[in-house]
């Protein structure tokens, strides 16, 4: 296992390096700058002399190669630079947002797995039944629904009408404030997991070894527990991993709607304000998170299916 892990970690580094270079170059050619973005709310007035001093202070007039070299030299020692907006270290800005993001993503995935996987199983075990139809209609709806609209509907129902939950904010970081954004974020992955699980289980149910097990007199419950479950899990876990990895960045709509202080909303705000160091830091974090999750998923395969071995 350790050599596999070492190889996977080694593979992450060139991916990250490519992302760093790509993001840096992209924002170097994008029109607009932090200085001109200071009036992006249409309510501020920046003096040109001040703008020039800002540009000098932030090194915005330095050549791209100089800025890139400085950036890479800093990244190597773990320094993600200073935010143009707040003039604080980017690591400090991001670290304040990581835990709320992880909480939201984790809660959303828990919801998605807890509802989507059993739903997919049930649908597969009773193909063509009312449960199967209802769950697949639900799954397609979940995939089609806009997170923004769904979030608003959840706010309207559970906060405004029923008064069960608060409609927005991080609050004291407790579960009451987490439920609505987690459900809004988790419905899409839940729908995908339901469909994927159903497809995976159906595929395994029709396999020869399952037919053999049944003909040996094994009960259906035993067949599902011993044979179907583990074989179907590989595809399900792949889907969980891909969803989990991408959710941190995909949470931006939900974060903005619910005023949830996550990395996604920090990223989007920073893009609009051209706070390049913060944008780069956020993207680096999201990509790293994605790669780490996928590495863990790859390692999980070995535990689930002994036939899978990495050369």
């Amino acid at each position, binding site marked *: 296992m350790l050599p596999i892990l070492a190889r996977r970690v080694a593979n992450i580094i060139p991916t990250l390096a490519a992302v760093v270079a790509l993001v840096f170059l992209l924002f170097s050619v994008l029109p607009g700058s932090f200085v001109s973005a200071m009036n992006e709310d249409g309510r501020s007035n920046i003096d040109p002399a001040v703008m020039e*001093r800002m540009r000098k202070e932030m090194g915005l007039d330095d050549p791209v190669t100089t800025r890139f070299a400085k950036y890479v030299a800093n990244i190597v020692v773990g320094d993600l630079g200073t935010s143009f907006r707040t003039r604080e270290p980017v690591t400090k800005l991001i670290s304040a947002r990581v835990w709320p993001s992880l909480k939201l993503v984790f809660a959303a995935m828990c919801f998605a797995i807890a509802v989507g996987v059993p739903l997919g199983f049930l649908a597969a075990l009773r193909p063509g039944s009312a449960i199967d139809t209802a769950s697949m209609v639900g799954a397609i709806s979940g995939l089609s629904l806009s997170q923004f609209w769904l979030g608003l509907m959840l706010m309207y129902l559970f*906060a405004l009408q029923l008064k069960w939950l608060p409609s927005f904010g991080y609050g004291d970081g407790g579960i009451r404030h987490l439920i609505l954004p987690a459900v809004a974020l988790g419905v899409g992955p839940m729908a995908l997991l339901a469909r994927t699980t159903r497809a995976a289980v159906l595929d395994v149910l029709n396999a020869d070894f399952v037919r053999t097990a049944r003909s040996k007199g094994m009960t259906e419950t035993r067949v599902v527990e011993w044979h179907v479950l583990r074989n179907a899990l590989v595809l399900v876990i792949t889907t969980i991993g891909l969803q989990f990895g991408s959710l941190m960045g995909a949470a931006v709509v939900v974060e903005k709607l619910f005023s949830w202080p996550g990395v996604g909303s920090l990223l989007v705000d920073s893009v609009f304000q051209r706070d390049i160091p913060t944008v780069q830091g956020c993207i680096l974090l999201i990509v790293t998170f994605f790669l780490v999750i996928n590495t863990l998923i790859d390692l999980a395969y070995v535990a689930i299916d002994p036939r899978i071995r990495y050369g």
Partner: protein
Amino acid sequence: MRRLVWLAAVAFTILGVAAAQAQDTPRRGGTIRMTAPYAASFGSLDPHATPRAQDDIVGKALQRSLYSWDTANNKPVLELAKSVSASPDGLTFTYKLRDDAYFHNGRKMTADDIIWSYNRIMDGTKGFPGARYVRIIKGAVDVEKGQAKEISGLKKIDDFTLEMTLTERVEPGYYFFAGTTAILPREEVEKGNYGAHPVGLGPFKFKEHIPGSRVVAERWDKFYKPGKPYADKLEVLIMAEAAARDVAFRNKEIDTSILGPAQYVAYRADPDLSKGILEVAEMFTRAMLYNPTYKPFADKRVRQAINYAIDTNLIIKRLVKDKAYRAVSWLPPSSAAFDKTMKPYPFDPAKAKKLLADAGYPNGFEFELSTSQNESWGLPIVEAIIPYLDKVGIKLKPKLVEVTVLTEIAMKGEHQAFIGSNLTGPDSLATLRCFYSKTPRTACNYTSFNNPEFDKLLDAAGEAADMAKRNDLLRQANNLLYEEAPVWFFNYNKAVLAYQPWIHGLQANPTEITHQYPENIWVDATSPAK
């Protein structure tokens, strides 16, 4: 029986009067829950480091500047000084400072703090936005350029007497009420990381900041206005999404909410919500600004024609849902130099066609209009004016860009025309300087306006010691702008703030409605927030 009924009536009357009086009497205690609606985070809690309107919402609670804005009388007033006297030439001001203003770390404010704060703002290695205001002090530019360590125009007479000499005759209040010129304690700033734990002179002291979520502040008991602030706590909650704010407001989770056009219509129609709406004409003029280097726009008749060609009233009514006031020239109605007798350009397509023909464009012409996505002054508005201009032969091609890029385009002159929102207050002289011929495009003369008569009026206004005479000259200059029409005059923003029935003391601040002075706000006992 009759006696009982009479006694009951008297009792109810007395109770009713008492209740009404209780509503009018500020209550001490409770929590004010305001919202920050412009972005998903605060830029910085260091007031010198950020020009953003959103950050100043918190700034008004934690910080104070030498002046503040008197919303009742629409002018700047002394805040950190008890009195001021001006020299005969109108350039030197002597301030008798408050001796009862304490920073949140317990230290009393002195003249040294003002001198240090303004020197910090002028640090040439930093791009502090307040420099545009402090530069008016004699010697400030030398500090900015690194040629001096201290601003020579600031002199400490004693701990509570400060002398300030300016480079031109202006009302200093218009410059030093800005949040970016707040007075800070040197020792707290020099500790480093000031933005994480801001210490100021405001009525509330900093308690916590959850980035991306909220700032919480507590009453500062040593605030210099006796009995104020009323509330125990102030929360500024980040809520950039209008629809979410709407739900939270209806659910009584927030006390105030800025309304967009869609919510404005809904709230006005609701019998309960309509009782809690505060409206003010803010100092923002929305306009389409022409670049005269593009040949058709060099002709006044073409510029006027566009003003005649568009049914601006209908666009404001139908598209902006009446959440704006029709613009008559550049200065907003709250300006002392605004001419109340002026009428806006009427909708007259026939006259527009005639003007175009006279200017040599009987078949119209084409132009590109740079615009953002903004719902109140962006693409939706551009799409609405296309058919009007088409009717008089003018083909408009929209060019959609981010607001960030729009600012750059305007400064570089890489546009034929652009539509945007422009800060037009509170100092009318400074506002109209954006059309002064010597003001470069990069400073704000985006229309490259050059009119000798206008320049003369502005020069005379700058020299005038008498405010009434100055305002009269500025009025004439503003009216000249109407005639010259360097822009299509669209509207002045109508800022609309919805508020809950338990919150009192809100101010109709035309400089920015979300910039409330929270020491004047109180919540009554019916507030659900504890």
